[in-house]
């Protein structure tokens, strides 16, 4: 099927090229062989420049209509709506500038296409014009910088005393994620890769002699988060660089061997609520239709149910593309119940003795 498709595409391309060169050739006066553009070249390419402007606009419109719904939807964290706001403003600005400048560029290319005997205007300088188009970007960018930096500092200035945050460690290794909750005391026990004992299932290298570590809870399968409560993530990696990327929460931070990095956010929408989000419903429906088609043709594609997910977003080796962990955001009591059910690090070690 694909082989056939490729052949068809190649044949079509060959025909297109043949036709285009033919078109260019026919449009030229037969005696002219200088290989320098003449009036008919200028005319044809000038029109094509205008056509190209139309193409750019159509491509933009087409992409928005066709692909507009694939982009991330409702943000699931408190700062997410600020983030999306800033993104929207920047995008609106960008599109405005893009539409205007591309129009000028290609329209001028079309309008002033060369003609024998026509004269260009000797126009070398205009200080006022240049001042204007230096100062406008300066002002616009100053605004954007200030807004951006405000958002950035509010987000990155993590204050552990503010509110009632829970501390969670995200631990990265080739090619999976683990999470460690700080437990009752809300303080993570000391840890180092040199203390890892695979036999005792101490995979995170938590210090057994550190009393703070005894009540820590390690989850190797899922990351559960309570809704409406700030979570401070402490990231570690045991081997290479990884990046903890939680796109639905507009959150990302690299995990660096040898140091602890951090990021904090407050989830505001539970997994259940997000599944009921109208955009999400539509997306899931669309995807499940595609998956149904695929499984009908014998592929392995079960129906999909939405879940938040933690991805690795820093190249980390052969299975980088499949380093993920499911995130469950739930009501605080559900979260507490889930946490209760887990073994603490102390219990785990005692059992391994």
């Amino acid at each position, binding site marked *: 099927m694909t082989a056939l498709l490729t052949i068809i595409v190649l044949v079509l391309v060959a025909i297109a090229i043949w036709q285009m060169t033919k078109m260019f050739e026919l449009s030229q006066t037969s005696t002219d062989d200088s290989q320098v553009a003449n009036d008919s070249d200028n005319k044809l390419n000038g029109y094509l420049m205008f056509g190209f402007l139309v193409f750019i606009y159509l491509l933009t419109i087409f992409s928005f209509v066709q692909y507009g719904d694939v982009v991330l939807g409702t943000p699931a964290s408190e700062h997410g709506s600020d983030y999306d706001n800033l993104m929207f403003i920047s995008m609106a600005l960008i599109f405005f500038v893009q539409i205007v400048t591309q129009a000028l560029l290609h329209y001028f290319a079309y309008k002033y296409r060369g003609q024998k005997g026509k004269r260009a205007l000797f126009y070398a300088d205009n200080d006022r014009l240049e001042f204007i188009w230096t100062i406008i970007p300066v002002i616009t960018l100053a605004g954007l910088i200030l807004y951006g930096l405000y958002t950035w500092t509010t987000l990155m200035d993590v204050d552990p005393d503010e509110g009632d945050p829970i501390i969670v460690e995200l631990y990265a290794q080739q090619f999976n994620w683990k999470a460690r909750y700080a437990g009752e005391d809300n303080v993570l026990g000391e840890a180092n890769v040199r203390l890892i004992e695979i036999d005792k299932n101490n995979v995170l290298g938590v210090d057994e002699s550190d009393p703070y570590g005894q009540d820590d809870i390690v989850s190797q399968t899922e990351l559960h988060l309570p809704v409406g409560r700030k979570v401070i993530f402490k990231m570690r990696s045991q081997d290479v660089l990884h990046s903890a990327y939680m796109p639905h929460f507009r959150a990302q931070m690299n995990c660096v061997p040898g140091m602890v990095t951090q990021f904090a956010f407050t989830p505001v929408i539970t997994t259940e609520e997000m599944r009921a989000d109208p955009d999400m419903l539509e997306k899931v429906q669309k995807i499940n239709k*595609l998956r149904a088609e695929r499984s009908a043709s014998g592929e392995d594609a079960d129906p999909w149910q939405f879940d938040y997910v933690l991805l690795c977003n820093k190249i980390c080796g052969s299975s980088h593309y499949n380093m993920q962990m499911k995130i469950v955001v739930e009501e605080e009591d559900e979260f507490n119940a889930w946490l209760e059910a887990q073994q603490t690090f102390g219990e785990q070690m005692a059992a391994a003795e």
Partner: protein
Amino acid sequence: MSTTAVNVPAEDHAHDHGHHHKEIFLTKYIFSQDHKMISKQYLITGLIMGFIGIAMSLLFRMQLAWPGESFKIFEVLLGKWAPEGVMDPNIYLALVTIHGTIMVFFVLTAGLSGTFSNLLIPLQIGARDMASGFLNMISYWLFFLSSVIMVLSLFVEAGPAAAGWTIYPPLSALPQAQPGSGMGMTLWLVSMAIFIASSLLGSLNYIVTVINLRTKGMSMTRLPLTIWAFFVTAIIGVVSFPVLLSAALLLIMDRSFGTSFFLSDIFIQGEVLHYQGGSPVLFEHLFWFLGHPEVYIVLLPALGITSEVIATNARKPIFGYRAMVASILAIAFLSTIVWGHHMFISGMNPFLGSVFTFTTLLIAIPSAVKAFNYITTLWKGNLQMNPAMLFSIGLVSTFITGGLTGIILGDSALDINVHDTYFVVAHFHLVMGISALYGLFAGVYHWFPKMFGRMMNKNLGYAHFWITAVCAYGVFFPMHFVGMAGVPRRYYTNTNFPMFDDLTDIQVVMTVFALIAGAAQLLFAWNFVYSIFYGKKATRNPWNSNTLEWTTPVEHIHGNWPGEIPHVHRWAYDYSKTKEDSDEYVIAGQDFVPQTVPLQENEEELNH
């Protein structure tokens, strides 16, 4: 030799440079010290590397569109890395890595700046050759050697380097982390070390030549913008490339001699390694201290070429020459203090992130000025749509489209969620990849008559441009949406995330466009090779251009000008200039005034 030569009588010169050297094949075509031959060597080596790099991208694009599908072509080209025609994840990463390395360094640094700096610096400033022909030759052969090593690394048993072109340790430092980090990475580092030496020799030569060997009358403010761009590019290279060399050396030490510059606290494959106290973030700083200026090392020569090509073909002076020079200088300066925007979420102090956001967004200002000046240069021109002109206009278009999304990525807050996604891939491919490639093509089409004495076929050139232009947008415009959907780059396949299932058809669209674009480059290759041998013979000044290179004879001679070196009396942009008291051209019947023409009667003198 040529500094003093300016004052020597003409006959002596003709003798000195025209006939004295009996060249044998080896000294003329292989170990040549002539800048024109060296530039051709750079161009051809760069183009060959370019075809390898582009072919790689087509292979991994096919994998992305049809993940896990079996292709005969994979089996043929990748051998054991594509058992039964299905691409292996490790070779996918290797392809991505080597594609990036080759395109950024070997094609767009050496192939673009190496070719045109070598060709144009002596010719456009009026010099017999580079300041040191010998160093110039060494520079090329080091580049050739590094290319050979890079290509050889593809055939290493455990596979070539696969840690991404940014080769962040520990992934690149530990063979346990991925097979490509063994011998493949060693060869990568050796190749790049040699490449850096080559680049430094070249850059120093360019700087000295521009400063010392300008002909009489060629003041800095009369230099064509091409020369300004090459000159400043060389300075950026001298400032930043050594830092990459030190990063590479420290990485070699970590890998081979057990030091811990970049490594600490590592547990891999069941054992703890001895490394303690190093930091991968340090490597990121060193890498991007070159890596970001590198973007401008790639882009500035392309912009320089565009300035020259647009002015010549618009039959108008470039608008705002001084602002253009100031922008080049401002971009060069700012480019060395923005590297941290690649590291907003690397674990670096967030305060530093704020500083880098500030400097990064500043760089949008000179870039915007350049874009506006190009557009104004087109306004009321008499545009000659030669293929080089089309590529130059195309460059301005992609430079704007790609540059604008930089405003999002340069903003530390917004970077959080699009960092390392396809949004970034789309951004930099448009703004530096495609734009710089267009600059390269514009340069080749424009100066082909100067390099090979023949013309390239314009119709094939038109077809090449229009197919490439449509496909470049077809590949990279939809890619922004993939990034906004949260798809990370360097994923072998996205099928493990059902949330990305609705992107499959975009992937196919992008890949089909990429394949067509790749095929269109064959047109160029054919046109290039065919025209070298059978192209129509060029006239001395086919584009009616003002700059000095078009005053040299079509046949290359050692020393460039048969007689005395011409003197310069004006800037390079007196196109369509009219007399002060009438609307006649300064030289009757001709809409250009070459730089060698003295001020005419009734002509207004400009400040150049």
